[in-house]
């Protein structure tokens, strides 16, 4: 197999961005636990969660954005592949969201004193998750494939702006315990540290690439399934006509 086929073909298991994802996350693990961090009371060493908890939300937002774009593409030109991509990116986004909420709850218990507070960002994230859960339920309730794809694409296009304004805009307008919200200083204020930023962005990028990889596998599997179904229907209609 040529170098081109191995590293620059997105379907190759050794595509450059898949390797990049692994190297980035390995770097984050090796440096994330050992690199120096600012000494802050209450936060203590948990400031390192910045490298692991926050990228979950980066990832979720990135995947929901990709799902949103594919929903628009589907409405412009209805192709089954666009619908599959839209729903699978939403699934991966939900998965990252659940991980973000769970890691956030554990971190909150250690620093804010409770697993769940009435912090607007927490509640907004929960509502955002419910909106996208409704998307999955809506899809499950429609039998006709074209109708399901079209209605859920419209739902997705409305869901994404709602999610972004809930999680990223509204908490900034009120009081929030989250850094960077409601007059709270962001993490950057404590640590304009270059090393921390490099680890943080590596983690975000690494997790996004990993999510894209997993989603691409799910999409390819669904596409294969679709082809098998179509072949089955074609052969059964031949039998019917006899």
């Amino acid at each position, binding site marked *: 197999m040529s170098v081109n086929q191995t590293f620059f073909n997105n379907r190759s298991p050794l595509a450059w961005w898949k390797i990049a994802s692994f190297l980035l996350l390995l770097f984050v693990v090796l440096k994330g636990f050992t690199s120096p961090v600012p000494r802050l009371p209450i936060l203590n060493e948990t400031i390192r969660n910045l490298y692991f908890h926050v990228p979950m939300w980066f990832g979720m937002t990135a995947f929901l954005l990709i799902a949103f774009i594919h929903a628009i593409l589907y409405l412009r030109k209805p192709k089954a592949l666009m619908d599959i991509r839209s729903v699978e990116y939403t699934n991966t986004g939900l998965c990252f969201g659940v991980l973000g909420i769970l890691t956030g709850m554990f971190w909150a218990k250690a620093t804010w004193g409770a697993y769940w507070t009435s912090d607007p960002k927490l509640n907004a994230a929960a509502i955002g998750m419910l909106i996208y859960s409704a998307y999955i339920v809506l899809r499950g309730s429609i039998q006709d494939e074209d109708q399901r794809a079209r209605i859920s694409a419209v739902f997705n296009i409305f869901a994404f702006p709602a999610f972004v304004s809930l999680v990223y805009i509204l908490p900034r307008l009120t009081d929030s315990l989250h850094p960077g919200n409601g007059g709270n200083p962001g993490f950057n204020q404590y640590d304009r540290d270059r090393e921390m930023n490099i680890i943080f962005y590596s983690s975000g990028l690494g997790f996004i690439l990993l999510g894209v990889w997993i989603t691409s596998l799910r999409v*390819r599997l669904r596409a294969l399934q679709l082809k098998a179904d179509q072949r089955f229907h074609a052969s059964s209609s031949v039998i019917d006509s006899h």
Partner: protein
Amino acid sequence: MKNIISKLLFFFLLTLSLSVNAQDDVAMADGFRADGKIYVVIVVFAIILTGLFVYVFLLDRKIGKLEREEKN
């Protein structure tokens, strides 16, 4: 005059708050790191990460094979 006093007060309070933040007795995992055992945890996590990536890699290869069979 009032302006100068308020400025001085501001800087006094600012340095006070900074000195509170700059405490060196904040509990960090210094001892844990000093005995070197943190590296065990890091290696364990690195192994898990590698294992998961190998798993996804194999899944990718399997799907690739299915796709090639589908084509033929």
